Protein backbone atom coordinates (compact mmCIF):
# COMPACT_ATOMS: atom_id res chain seq x y z
CA UNK A 1 0.00 0.00 0.00
CA UNK A 2 1.22 3.48 -0.87
CA UNK A 3 2.31 5.43 2.16
CA UNK A 4 0.66 8.75 2.85
CA UNK A 5 3.32 11.41 2.95
CA UNK A 6 3.23 14.02 5.64
CA UNK A 7 3.36 17.52 4.20
CA UNK A 8 4.79 20.60 5.80
CA UNK A 9 4.05 24.22 5.13
CA UNK A 10 7.56 24.68 3.77
CA UNK A 11 6.45 22.89 0.61
CA UNK A 12 3.82 25.52 -0.09
CA UNK A 13 6.01 28.51 0.69
CA UNK A 14 6.10 29.76 -2.88
CA UNK A 15 2.34 29.51 -3.26
CA UNK A 16 1.01 31.33 -0.23
CA UNK A 17 1.61 34.78 1.18
CA UNK A 18 4.38 35.51 3.66
CA UNK A 19 1.79 35.92 6.39
CA UNK A 20 1.01 32.21 6.28
CA UNK A 21 4.53 31.31 7.38
CA UNK A 22 4.24 33.32 10.54
CA UNK A 23 0.90 31.74 11.31
CA UNK A 24 -1.04 34.96 10.83
CA UNK A 25 -3.26 33.42 8.19
CA UNK A 26 -4.58 29.91 8.22
CA UNK A 27 -4.14 27.23 5.60
CA UNK A 28 -7.20 25.12 5.03
CA UNK A 29 -7.49 22.04 2.91
CA UNK A 30 -10.73 21.67 0.96
CA UNK A 31 -11.12 18.38 -0.83
CA UNK A 32 -10.34 16.14 -2.64
CA UNK A 33 -13.27 14.56 -0.86
CA UNK A 34 -15.63 17.47 -0.43
CA UNK A 35 -19.26 17.47 -1.53
CA UNK A 36 -19.15 20.91 -3.11
CA UNK A 37 -15.97 20.61 -5.14
CA UNK A 38 -17.98 18.64 -7.72
CA UNK A 39 -15.62 15.73 -7.89
CA UNK A 40 -12.11 15.20 -6.69
CA UNK A 41 -10.74 18.72 -6.80
CA UNK A 42 -8.51 19.80 -3.95
CA UNK A 43 -8.32 23.45 -3.04
CA UNK A 44 -5.69 24.78 -0.71
CA UNK A 45 -7.11 27.89 0.87
CA UNK A 46 -5.25 30.57 2.74
CA UNK A 47 -7.68 32.30 5.04
CA UNK A 48 -7.63 35.50 7.00
CA UNK A 49 -10.49 34.73 9.34
CA UNK A 50 -13.28 33.83 6.95
CA UNK A 51 -11.82 35.79 4.03
CA UNK A 52 -9.95 33.97 1.29
CA UNK A 53 -6.49 35.39 0.66
CA UNK A 54 -5.25 32.70 -1.70
CA UNK A 55 -6.86 29.76 -3.40
CA UNK A 56 -4.65 27.14 -4.99
CA UNK A 57 -6.37 24.38 -6.97
CA UNK A 58 -4.64 21.02 -6.89
CA UNK A 59 -5.78 18.85 -9.76
CA UNK A 60 -4.85 15.40 -11.02
CA UNK A 61 -6.85 13.23 -8.63
CA UNK A 62 -8.76 11.86 -11.59
CA UNK A 63 -5.94 11.66 -14.08
CA UNK A 64 -6.87 8.75 -16.31
CA UNK A 65 -4.42 8.86 -19.18
CA UNK A 66 -7.23 9.07 -21.71
CA UNK A 67 -5.09 10.74 -24.37
CA UNK A 68 -2.45 8.00 -24.19
CA UNK A 69 -5.07 5.27 -24.15
CA UNK A 70 -6.63 6.71 -27.29
CA UNK A 71 -3.29 6.61 -29.04
CA UNK A 72 -3.10 2.87 -28.41
CA UNK A 73 -6.43 2.16 -30.07
CA UNK A 74 -7.71 2.25 -33.64
CA UNK A 75 -9.83 5.19 -34.72
CA UNK A 76 -13.13 3.37 -34.15
CA UNK A 77 -12.16 1.97 -30.77
CA UNK A 78 -10.69 5.19 -29.40
CA UNK A 79 -14.12 6.75 -29.44
CA UNK A 80 -15.34 5.00 -26.29
CA UNK A 81 -12.65 6.85 -24.37
CA UNK A 82 -14.11 10.23 -25.26
CA UNK A 83 -17.41 9.42 -23.52
CA UNK A 84 -15.66 9.07 -20.21
CA UNK A 85 -13.77 12.31 -20.55
CA UNK A 86 -16.37 14.91 -19.66
CA UNK A 87 -18.97 12.56 -18.30
CA UNK A 88 -21.75 15.14 -18.26
CA UNK A 89 -21.41 15.58 -22.01
CA UNK A 90 -20.69 12.21 -23.69
CA UNK A 91 -22.57 13.10 -26.88
CA UNK A 92 -20.65 16.35 -27.30
CA UNK A 93 -17.32 14.63 -26.76
CA UNK A 94 -18.24 12.01 -29.34
CA UNK A 95 -19.13 14.77 -31.76
CA UNK A 96 -15.78 16.51 -31.34
CA UNK A 97 -14.01 13.22 -31.91
CA UNK A 98 -15.96 11.97 -34.91
CA UNK A 99 -15.72 15.40 -36.52
CA UNK A 100 -11.95 15.26 -36.16
CA UNK A 101 -11.79 11.79 -37.70
CA UNK A 102 -14.09 12.83 -40.53
CA UNK A 103 -11.89 15.84 -41.21
CA UNK A 104 -8.77 13.70 -41.14
CA UNK A 105 -9.96 11.05 -43.59
CA UNK A 106 -12.27 13.41 -45.52
CA UNK A 107 -15.54 11.62 -44.93
CA UNK A 108 -19.00 13.00 -45.75
CA UNK A 109 -21.85 12.87 -43.27
CA UNK A 110 -25.44 12.56 -44.53
CA UNK A 111 -27.85 15.36 -43.65
CA UNK A 112 -30.05 13.15 -41.49
CA UNK A 113 -27.09 12.10 -39.37
CA UNK A 114 -26.11 15.75 -38.91
CA UNK A 115 -29.62 16.63 -37.80
CA UNK A 116 -29.72 13.73 -35.35
CA UNK A 117 -26.37 14.78 -33.97
CA UNK A 118 -27.60 18.31 -33.35
CA UNK A 119 -30.77 17.09 -31.60
CA UNK A 120 -28.87 14.72 -29.33
CA UNK A 121 -26.08 17.16 -28.53
CA UNK A 122 -28.61 19.82 -27.57
CA UNK A 123 -30.48 17.32 -25.40
CA UNK A 124 -27.17 16.53 -23.78
CA UNK A 125 -26.56 20.23 -23.18
CA UNK A 126 -29.89 20.44 -21.38
CA UNK A 127 -29.07 17.33 -19.33
CA UNK A 128 -25.69 18.76 -18.38
CA UNK A 129 -27.16 22.11 -17.41
CA UNK A 130 -29.77 20.26 -15.35
CA UNK A 131 -27.08 18.51 -13.34
CA UNK A 132 -25.38 21.88 -12.99
CA UNK A 133 -28.53 23.56 -11.76
CA UNK A 134 -29.30 20.71 -9.42
CA UNK A 135 -25.87 20.72 -7.85
CA UNK A 136 -25.81 24.52 -7.54
CA UNK A 137 -29.09 24.22 -5.71
CA UNK A 138 -27.68 21.49 -3.53
CA UNK A 139 -24.62 23.56 -2.69
CA UNK A 140 -26.80 26.49 -1.70
CA UNK A 141 -29.09 24.25 0.36
CA UNK A 142 -31.96 24.23 -2.14
CA UNK A 143 -32.37 20.48 -1.99
CA UNK A 144 -35.61 20.44 -3.96
CA UNK A 145 -33.85 21.80 -7.05
CA UNK A 146 -31.70 18.69 -7.15
CA UNK A 147 -34.75 16.44 -7.07
CA UNK A 148 -36.60 18.42 -9.75
CA UNK A 149 -33.61 18.63 -12.08
CA UNK A 150 -32.87 14.93 -11.89
CA UNK A 151 -36.52 14.17 -12.58
CA UNK A 152 -36.25 15.98 -15.92
CA UNK A 153 -32.84 14.57 -16.65
CA UNK A 154 -34.29 11.08 -16.57
CA UNK A 155 -36.56 12.03 -19.49
CA UNK A 156 -33.49 12.88 -21.57
CA UNK A 157 -31.64 9.75 -20.48
CA UNK A 158 -34.66 7.71 -21.56
CA UNK A 159 -34.33 9.22 -25.04
CA UNK A 160 -30.62 8.33 -25.09
CA UNK A 161 -31.42 4.82 -24.02
CA UNK A 162 -33.98 4.60 -26.79
CA UNK A 163 -31.49 5.50 -29.50
CA UNK A 164 -28.34 3.85 -28.22
CA UNK A 165 -29.22 1.35 -25.50
CA UNK A 166 -27.13 3.18 -22.91
CA UNK A 167 -28.09 5.93 -20.50
CA UNK A 168 -24.85 7.80 -20.27
CA UNK A 169 -21.90 6.44 -22.26
CA UNK A 170 -23.69 6.22 -25.55
CA UNK A 171 -20.96 6.19 -28.26
CA UNK A 172 -23.83 6.69 -30.66
CA UNK A 173 -22.02 8.93 -33.12
CA UNK A 174 -19.59 7.09 -35.35
CA UNK A 175 -17.13 8.36 -37.94
CA UNK A 176 -19.28 8.91 -41.04
CA UNK A 177 -22.63 9.26 -39.29
CA UNK A 178 -24.38 7.60 -36.40
CA UNK A 179 -24.50 3.98 -35.29
CA UNK A 180 -27.99 3.19 -36.65
CA UNK A 181 -31.20 4.99 -37.39
CA UNK A 182 -33.31 6.10 -34.46
CA UNK A 183 -36.38 3.98 -33.62
CA UNK A 184 -39.82 5.27 -34.62
CA UNK A 185 -40.63 6.27 -31.04
CA UNK A 186 -37.79 8.79 -31.06
CA UNK A 187 -39.71 11.67 -32.57
CA UNK A 188 -42.60 11.31 -30.16
CA UNK A 189 -40.28 11.06 -27.17
CA UNK A 190 -38.46 14.26 -28.16
CA UNK A 191 -41.70 16.10 -28.94
CA UNK A 192 -43.09 15.08 -25.56
CA UNK A 193 -40.00 16.42 -23.91
CA UNK A 194 -40.31 19.69 -25.84
CA UNK A 195 -43.87 19.96 -24.61
CA UNK A 196 -43.09 19.23 -20.96
CA UNK A 197 -39.86 21.07 -20.44
CA UNK A 198 -40.70 24.80 -20.95
CA UNK A 199 -43.14 24.69 -18.03
CA UNK A 200 -40.48 23.03 -15.93
CA UNK A 201 -38.00 25.83 -16.67
CA UNK A 202 -40.63 28.31 -15.48
CA UNK A 203 -40.93 26.22 -12.33
CA UNK A 204 -37.19 26.45 -11.67
CA UNK A 205 -37.23 30.16 -12.30
CA UNK A 206 -40.14 30.61 -9.93
CA UNK A 207 -38.16 28.80 -7.26
CA UNK A 208 -34.83 30.52 -7.76
CA UNK A 209 -34.62 33.61 -9.97
CA UNK A 210 -36.23 36.06 -7.58
CA UNK A 211 -35.79 34.08 -4.40
CA UNK A 212 -34.16 36.49 -1.88
CA UNK A 213 -32.20 33.70 -0.19
CA UNK A 214 -30.81 32.59 -3.53
CA UNK A 215 -30.03 36.17 -4.60
CA UNK A 216 -28.14 36.77 -1.36
CA UNK A 217 -25.89 33.85 -2.13
CA UNK A 218 -25.42 34.68 -5.83
CA UNK A 219 -25.51 38.41 -6.57
CA UNK A 220 -22.22 40.24 -7.02
CA UNK A 221 -20.02 37.25 -6.22
CA UNK A 222 -16.93 36.20 -8.13
CA UNK A 223 -17.06 38.98 -10.68
CA UNK A 224 -15.09 38.10 -13.79
CA UNK A 225 -14.46 40.90 -16.27
CA UNK A 226 -14.27 40.18 -19.96
CA UNK A 227 -10.56 41.05 -20.36
CA UNK A 228 -9.51 38.62 -17.62
CA UNK A 229 -11.83 35.96 -18.95
CA UNK A 230 -10.32 36.24 -22.42
CA UNK A 231 -6.75 36.26 -21.16
CA UNK A 232 -7.35 33.05 -19.21
CA UNK A 233 -9.02 31.36 -22.18
CA UNK A 234 -12.35 31.03 -20.42
CA UNK A 235 -15.15 29.86 -22.73
CA UNK A 236 -18.76 28.81 -22.58
CA UNK A 237 -21.49 30.21 -20.34
CA UNK A 238 -18.88 31.61 -17.98
CA UNK A 239 -17.45 33.78 -20.76
CA UNK A 240 -20.86 34.76 -22.06
CA UNK A 241 -21.92 35.90 -18.61
CA UNK A 242 -18.93 38.25 -18.71
CA UNK A 243 -20.16 40.06 -21.80
CA UNK A 244 -18.30 38.31 -24.59
CA UNK A 245 -20.48 37.02 -27.38
CA UNK A 246 -18.55 33.91 -28.35
CA UNK A 247 -20.28 30.69 -29.13
CA UNK A 248 -18.73 28.22 -31.53
CA UNK A 249 -22.17 27.22 -32.79
CA UNK A 250 -22.48 30.75 -34.20
CA UNK A 251 -18.85 31.69 -34.72
CA UNK A 252 -17.65 28.47 -36.40
CA UNK A 253 -20.81 26.54 -37.26
CA UNK A 254 -20.45 22.79 -37.50
CA UNK A 255 -22.84 19.90 -38.14
CA UNK A 256 -25.35 22.26 -39.78
CA UNK A 257 -25.81 24.70 -36.91
CA UNK A 258 -25.85 27.61 -39.37
CA UNK A 259 -29.36 26.69 -40.54
CA UNK A 260 -31.00 27.02 -37.12
CA UNK A 261 -32.30 30.24 -35.70
CA UNK A 262 -31.30 30.74 -32.08
CA UNK A 263 -29.87 33.41 -29.83
CA UNK A 264 -26.71 33.35 -27.78
CA UNK A 265 -27.54 34.67 -24.32
CA UNK A 266 -24.96 37.25 -23.25
CA UNK A 267 -24.91 39.16 -19.99
CA UNK A 268 -22.40 41.74 -18.87
CA UNK A 269 -22.41 41.48 -15.07
CA UNK A 270 -19.94 38.58 -14.94
CA UNK A 271 -21.02 37.47 -11.48
CA UNK A 272 -22.36 34.16 -10.23
CA UNK A 273 -25.95 35.23 -10.76
CA UNK A 274 -25.29 36.21 -14.39
CA UNK A 275 -23.85 32.74 -14.99
CA UNK A 276 -27.01 31.25 -13.54
CA UNK A 277 -29.17 33.38 -15.86
CA UNK A 278 -27.11 32.40 -18.91
CA UNK A 279 -27.58 28.73 -18.09
CA UNK A 280 -31.34 29.17 -17.69
CA UNK A 281 -31.62 31.02 -21.00
CA UNK A 282 -29.56 28.37 -22.74
CA UNK A 283 -32.22 25.83 -21.79
CA UNK A 284 -34.73 27.76 -23.89
CA UNK A 285 -32.35 28.28 -26.81
CA UNK A 286 -31.50 24.58 -26.89
CA UNK A 287 -35.19 23.75 -27.02
CA UNK A 288 -35.55 26.08 -30.01
CA UNK A 289 -32.71 24.32 -31.83
CA UNK A 290 -34.10 20.86 -31.07
CA UNK A 291 -37.53 21.80 -32.36
CA UNK A 292 -36.16 23.25 -35.62
CA UNK A 293 -33.81 20.31 -36.16
CA UNK A 294 -36.63 17.86 -35.57
CA UNK A 295 -38.90 19.67 -38.03
CA UNK A 296 -36.18 19.78 -40.66
CA UNK A 297 -34.95 16.22 -40.13
CA UNK A 298 -35.04 14.54 -43.57
CA UNK A 299 -35.37 10.85 -44.23
CA UNK A 300 -32.40 9.07 -45.72
CA UNK A 301 -29.22 7.27 -44.82
CA UNK A 302 -27.73 7.87 -41.37
CA UNK A 303 -24.14 7.05 -42.21
CA UNK A 304 -21.81 7.42 -45.12
CA UNK A 305 -21.86 4.70 -47.78
CA UNK A 306 -18.08 4.72 -47.98
CA UNK A 307 -17.31 1.14 -47.00
CA UNK A 308 -13.65 1.88 -46.44
CA UNK A 309 -14.58 3.70 -43.22
CA UNK A 310 -18.10 2.67 -42.28
CA UNK A 311 -18.83 -1.03 -41.64
CA UNK A 312 -21.50 -2.58 -43.90
CA UNK A 313 -24.87 -3.52 -42.40
CA UNK A 314 -25.22 -6.96 -40.91
CA UNK A 315 -27.68 -8.07 -43.61
CA UNK A 316 -25.12 -7.55 -46.39
CA UNK A 317 -22.41 -9.64 -44.81
CA UNK A 318 -24.13 -12.95 -45.50
CA UNK A 319 -24.65 -12.29 -49.20
CA UNK A 320 -21.72 -10.14 -50.32
CA UNK A 321 -18.11 -11.27 -50.21
CA UNK A 322 -16.96 -7.68 -50.55
CA UNK A 323 -18.96 -6.60 -47.51
CA UNK A 324 -17.54 -9.47 -45.50
CA UNK A 325 -14.02 -8.39 -46.37
CA UNK A 326 -14.77 -4.76 -45.50
CA UNK A 327 -16.29 -5.78 -42.20
CA UNK A 328 -13.32 -7.99 -41.37
CA UNK A 329 -10.76 -5.37 -42.33
CA UNK A 330 -12.48 -2.60 -40.41
CA UNK A 331 -12.84 -4.51 -37.16
CA UNK A 332 -9.45 -6.17 -37.18
CA UNK A 333 -7.14 -3.55 -38.64
CA UNK A 334 -9.19 -0.39 -38.66
CA UNK A 335 -8.85 2.18 -41.40
CA UNK A 336 -5.65 4.07 -42.12
CA UNK A 337 -5.62 7.85 -41.86
CA UNK A 338 -3.24 10.12 -43.71
CA UNK A 339 -0.22 11.83 -42.18
CA UNK A 340 -1.90 15.04 -41.16
CA UNK A 341 -2.96 16.96 -38.14
CA UNK A 342 -6.51 18.25 -37.63
CA UNK A 343 -8.26 20.20 -34.93
CA UNK A 344 -11.99 20.15 -34.42
CA UNK A 345 -13.89 22.05 -31.79
CA UNK A 346 -17.45 21.98 -30.54
CA UNK A 347 -19.33 24.11 -28.07
CA UNK A 348 -19.75 21.81 -25.11
CA UNK A 349 -22.02 22.85 -22.22
CA UNK A 350 -18.89 24.18 -20.54
CA UNK A 351 -17.20 25.91 -23.46
CA UNK A 352 -14.89 25.10 -26.30
CA UNK A 353 -14.02 21.43 -26.39
CA UNK A 354 -11.26 20.95 -28.93
CA UNK A 355 -9.58 17.80 -30.10
CA UNK A 356 -6.30 17.64 -31.95
CA UNK A 357 -5.80 14.45 -33.89
CA UNK A 358 -2.63 13.57 -35.68
CA UNK A 359 -2.52 10.67 -38.10
CA UNK A 360 0.64 8.84 -39.09
CA UNK A 361 -0.63 6.81 -42.05
CA UNK A 362 -1.62 3.87 -39.89
CA UNK A 363 -4.90 2.85 -38.24
CA UNK A 364 -4.04 4.44 -34.89
CA UNK A 365 -3.60 8.13 -34.08
CA UNK A 366 -0.06 9.29 -33.46
CA UNK A 367 -1.14 11.99 -31.06
CA UNK A 368 -4.42 12.95 -29.47
CA UNK A 369 -4.64 16.12 -27.51
CA UNK A 370 -7.67 17.63 -25.88
CA UNK A 371 -8.41 21.24 -25.16
CA UNK A 372 -10.97 20.93 -22.43
CA UNK A 373 -13.10 23.86 -21.30
CA UNK A 374 -13.18 23.05 -17.57
CA UNK A 375 -9.40 23.22 -17.32
CA UNK A 376 -9.25 26.78 -18.60
CA UNK A 377 -12.33 27.81 -16.64
CA UNK A 378 -10.85 26.47 -13.43
CA UNK A 379 -7.61 28.40 -13.92
CA UNK A 380 -9.48 31.64 -13.44
CA UNK A 381 -10.92 30.51 -10.10
CA UNK A 382 -8.03 31.64 -7.90
CA UNK A 383 -8.35 35.03 -9.55
CA UNK A 384 -12.03 35.59 -8.80
CA UNK A 385 -12.44 34.16 -5.30
CA UNK A 386 -9.90 36.29 -3.49
CA UNK A 387 -11.52 38.51 -0.90
CA UNK A 388 -14.68 36.43 -0.68
CA UNK A 389 -15.92 34.33 2.21
CA UNK A 390 -15.37 30.59 2.29
CA UNK A 391 -19.12 30.02 2.02
CA UNK A 392 -19.17 32.07 -1.18
CA UNK A 393 -16.37 30.01 -2.68
CA UNK A 394 -18.84 27.14 -2.87
CA UNK A 395 -21.25 29.23 -4.94
CA UNK A 396 -18.53 30.58 -7.20
CA UNK A 397 -16.97 27.18 -7.80
CA UNK A 398 -20.37 25.73 -8.58
CA UNK A 399 -21.19 28.56 -10.98
CA UNK A 400 -18.16 28.09 -13.24
CA UNK A 401 -19.37 24.55 -13.91
CA UNK A 402 -16.31 22.36 -13.83
CA UNK A 403 -16.18 18.63 -14.39
CA UNK A 404 -13.12 16.93 -13.00
CA UNK A 405 -13.04 14.27 -15.68
CA UNK A 406 -12.74 17.11 -18.14
CA UNK A 407 -9.90 18.78 -16.26
CA UNK A 408 -7.71 15.80 -15.41
CA UNK A 409 -8.64 13.50 -18.32
Amino acid at each position, binding site marked *: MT*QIEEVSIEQFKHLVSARALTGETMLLNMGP*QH*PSTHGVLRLLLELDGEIIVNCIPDIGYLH*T*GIEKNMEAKTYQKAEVMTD*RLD*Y*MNPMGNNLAYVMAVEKLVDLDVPVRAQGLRVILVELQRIASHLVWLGSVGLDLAAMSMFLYC*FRERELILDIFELVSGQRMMTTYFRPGGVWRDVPVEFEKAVRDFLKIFPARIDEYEKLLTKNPLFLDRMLGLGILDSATALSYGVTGPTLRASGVNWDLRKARPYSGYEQYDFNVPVLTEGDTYARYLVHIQEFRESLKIIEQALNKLPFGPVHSENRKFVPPPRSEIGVSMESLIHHFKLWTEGFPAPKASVYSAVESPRGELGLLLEGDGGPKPLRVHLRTPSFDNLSVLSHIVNGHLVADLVAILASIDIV*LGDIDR
Partner: protein
Amino acid sequence: MGVEQKLGDMGVVTTTLENVVNWSRTNAMWPMLFGLACCAIEMMAAQASNYDMSRFGMELMRASPRQSDLMIVAGRVSKKMGPVLRRLYDQMPEPKWVIAMGDCASCGGVFNNYAIFQGVDEVVPVDVYVAGCPPRPEALIHGVLTLYEKVNKEKFKDLAEKYK
Protein backbone atom coordinates in the same frame (compact mmCIF):
# COMPACT_ATOMS: atom_id res chain seq x y z
CA MET B 1 -51.38 -1.53 11.96
CA GLY B 2 -48.70 -3.93 11.00
CA VAL B 3 -46.71 -5.52 13.73
CA GLU B 4 -49.23 -4.78 16.54
CA GLN B 5 -51.95 -6.61 14.69
CA LYS B 6 -49.91 -9.73 14.33
CA LEU B 7 -48.72 -9.71 17.93
CA GLY B 8 -52.08 -9.17 19.56
CA ASP B 9 -51.56 -7.45 22.93
CA MET B 10 -48.58 -9.47 24.02
CA GLY B 11 -46.17 -6.57 23.53
CA VAL B 12 -43.29 -9.00 23.28
CA VAL B 13 -41.07 -9.88 20.35
CA THR B 14 -38.60 -12.69 20.63
CA THR B 15 -35.61 -12.74 18.37
CA THR B 16 -31.88 -12.99 18.60
CA LEU B 17 -29.61 -10.07 19.30
CA GLU B 18 -27.80 -10.80 16.06
CA ASN B 19 -31.00 -10.36 14.08
CA VAL B 20 -31.82 -7.08 15.77
CA VAL B 21 -28.34 -5.68 15.23
CA ASN B 22 -28.21 -6.76 11.60
CA TRP B 23 -31.72 -5.48 11.00
CA SER B 24 -30.83 -2.07 12.36
CA ARG B 25 -27.60 -1.97 10.38
CA THR B 26 -29.29 -2.73 7.10
CA ASN B 27 -32.10 -0.27 7.64
CA ALA B 28 -29.97 2.76 8.38
CA MET B 29 -26.83 2.32 6.36
CA TRP B 30 -25.57 5.74 5.48
CA PRO B 31 -23.25 5.94 2.51
CA MET B 32 -20.46 8.45 2.23
CA LEU B 33 -21.15 11.34 -0.12
CA PHE B 34 -18.14 10.80 -2.25
CA GLY B 35 -18.03 10.61 -6.02
CA LEU B 36 -15.03 10.08 -8.24
CA ALA B 37 -16.14 10.09 -11.86
CA CYS B 38 -18.97 9.13 -14.20
CA CYS B 39 -20.54 6.61 -11.80
CA ALA B 40 -21.02 9.39 -9.26
CA ILE B 41 -23.62 10.92 -11.56
CA GLU B 42 -25.53 7.65 -11.64
CA MET B 43 -25.14 7.43 -7.87
CA MET B 44 -26.73 10.90 -7.66
CA ALA B 45 -29.48 9.70 -9.97
CA ALA B 46 -30.03 6.71 -7.67
CA GLN B 47 -30.46 9.13 -4.77
CA ALA B 48 -32.77 11.44 -6.72
CA SER B 49 -36.48 11.34 -7.30
CA ASN B 50 -36.91 8.53 -9.82
CA TYR B 51 -34.93 5.84 -8.02
CA ASP B 52 -34.93 7.15 -4.46
CA MET B 53 -32.45 5.03 -2.54
CA SER B 54 -33.88 6.30 0.72
CA ARG B 55 -36.45 3.52 0.36
CA PHE B 56 -33.64 1.24 1.50
CA GLY B 57 -32.58 3.17 4.57
CA MET B 58 -30.17 5.49 2.81
CA GLU B 59 -31.85 8.75 3.67
CA LEU B 60 -28.64 10.61 4.01
CA MET B 61 -25.34 10.71 2.26
CA ARG B 62 -22.82 11.78 4.86
CA ALA B 63 -20.07 14.04 3.62
CA SER B 64 -17.83 13.04 6.50
CA PRO B 65 -16.31 9.55 6.60
CA ARG B 66 -16.67 9.55 10.38
CA GLN B 67 -20.46 9.50 10.10
CA SER B 68 -20.80 6.93 7.35
CA ASP B 69 -21.13 3.15 7.25
CA LEU B 70 -20.78 2.46 3.58
CA MET B 71 -18.28 3.64 1.03
CA ILE B 72 -19.51 3.54 -2.55
CA VAL B 73 -16.44 3.87 -4.74
CA ALA B 74 -18.10 5.46 -7.73
CA GLY B 75 -15.58 5.80 -10.50
CA ARG B 76 -12.00 5.23 -11.50
CA VAL B 77 -9.36 5.45 -8.80
CA SER B 78 -6.18 7.11 -9.99
CA LYS B 79 -2.76 6.54 -8.48
CA LYS B 80 -2.97 9.98 -6.90
CA MET B 81 -6.41 9.31 -5.42
CA GLY B 82 -5.57 5.87 -4.00
CA PRO B 83 -3.88 7.05 -0.78
CA VAL B 84 -6.67 9.57 -0.18
CA LEU B 85 -9.26 6.84 -0.63
CA ARG B 86 -7.41 4.62 1.83
CA ARG B 87 -7.27 7.42 4.38
CA LEU B 88 -11.00 8.01 4.02
CA TYR B 89 -11.62 4.31 4.53
CA ASP B 90 -9.44 4.28 7.63
CA GLN B 91 -11.38 7.22 9.03
CA MET B 92 -14.70 5.42 8.79
CA PRO B 93 -15.82 3.81 12.05
CA GLU B 94 -16.41 0.08 12.28
CA PRO B 95 -18.47 -1.68 11.09
CA LYS B 96 -17.94 -0.49 7.53
CA TRP B 97 -18.57 -1.83 4.07
CA VAL B 98 -17.40 -1.00 0.57
CA ILE B 99 -19.21 -1.25 -2.74
CA ALA B 100 -17.09 -1.01 -5.88
CA MET B 101 -19.47 0.67 -8.27
CA GLY B 102 -18.80 0.25 -11.96
CA ASP B 103 -16.19 -1.45 -14.05
CA CYS B 104 -13.34 0.97 -13.25
CA ALA B 105 -13.67 0.51 -9.51
CA SER B 106 -14.13 -3.25 -9.93
CA CYS B 107 -11.33 -4.06 -12.33
CA GLY B 108 -10.00 -0.97 -14.08
CA GLY B 109 -12.63 -1.10 -16.81
CA VAL B 110 -11.52 0.29 -20.14
CA PHE B 111 -8.57 2.04 -18.57
CA ASN B 112 -5.80 -0.49 -18.49
CA ASN B 113 -2.99 2.02 -18.13
CA TYR B 114 -0.40 3.65 -15.94
CA ALA B 115 -2.74 6.03 -14.15
CA ILE B 116 -5.53 3.87 -12.82
CA PHE B 117 -5.69 1.21 -10.10
CA GLN B 118 -6.88 -2.00 -11.72
CA GLY B 119 -9.71 -2.37 -9.27
CA VAL B 120 -10.19 -0.56 -5.99
CA ASP B 121 -9.62 -3.84 -4.12
CA GLU B 122 -5.93 -3.03 -4.46
CA VAL B 123 -6.57 -0.21 -1.99
CA VAL B 124 -9.50 -1.17 0.25
CA PRO B 125 -11.35 -4.46 0.88
CA VAL B 126 -14.49 -4.67 -1.24
CA ASP B 127 -17.75 -6.39 -0.26
CA VAL B 128 -19.83 -6.05 -3.39
CA TYR B 129 -18.85 -5.38 -7.00
CA VAL B 130 -21.38 -3.77 -9.32
CA ALA B 131 -20.75 -4.22 -13.02
CA GLY B 132 -21.59 -1.67 -15.70
CA CYS B 133 -20.05 1.36 -17.28
CA PRO B 134 -21.70 3.12 -15.59
CA PRO B 135 -24.16 0.78 -13.85
CA ARG B 136 -27.78 1.87 -13.99
CA PRO B 137 -29.24 3.14 -10.72
CA GLU B 138 -31.19 -0.12 -10.50
CA ALA B 139 -27.90 -2.01 -10.66
CA LEU B 140 -26.50 0.04 -7.80
CA ILE B 141 -29.63 -0.59 -5.76
CA HIS B 142 -29.27 -4.28 -6.49
CA GLY B 143 -25.69 -4.05 -5.26
CA VAL B 144 -26.88 -2.41 -2.07
CA LEU B 145 -29.49 -5.11 -1.51
CA THR B 146 -26.86 -7.78 -2.12
CA LEU B 147 -24.77 -6.12 0.54
CA TYR B 148 -27.76 -6.21 2.89
CA GLU B 149 -28.05 -9.95 2.36
CA LYS B 150 -24.41 -10.26 3.31
CA VAL B 151 -24.83 -8.09 6.41
CA ASN B 152 -27.89 -10.04 7.49
CA LYS B 153 -25.82 -13.23 7.52
CA GLU B 154 -23.14 -11.77 9.79
CA LYS B 155 -22.54 -13.63 13.04
CA PHE B 156 -21.16 -12.11 16.22
CA LYS B 157 -18.79 -15.03 16.46
CA ASP B 158 -17.16 -14.11 13.15
CA LEU B 159 -17.07 -10.43 14.03
CA ALA B 160 -15.33 -11.22 17.30
CA GLU B 161 -12.77 -13.16 15.32
CA LYS B 162 -12.36 -10.32 12.84
CA TYR B 163 -11.74 -7.57 15.40
CA LYS B 164 -9.67 -9.60 17.84
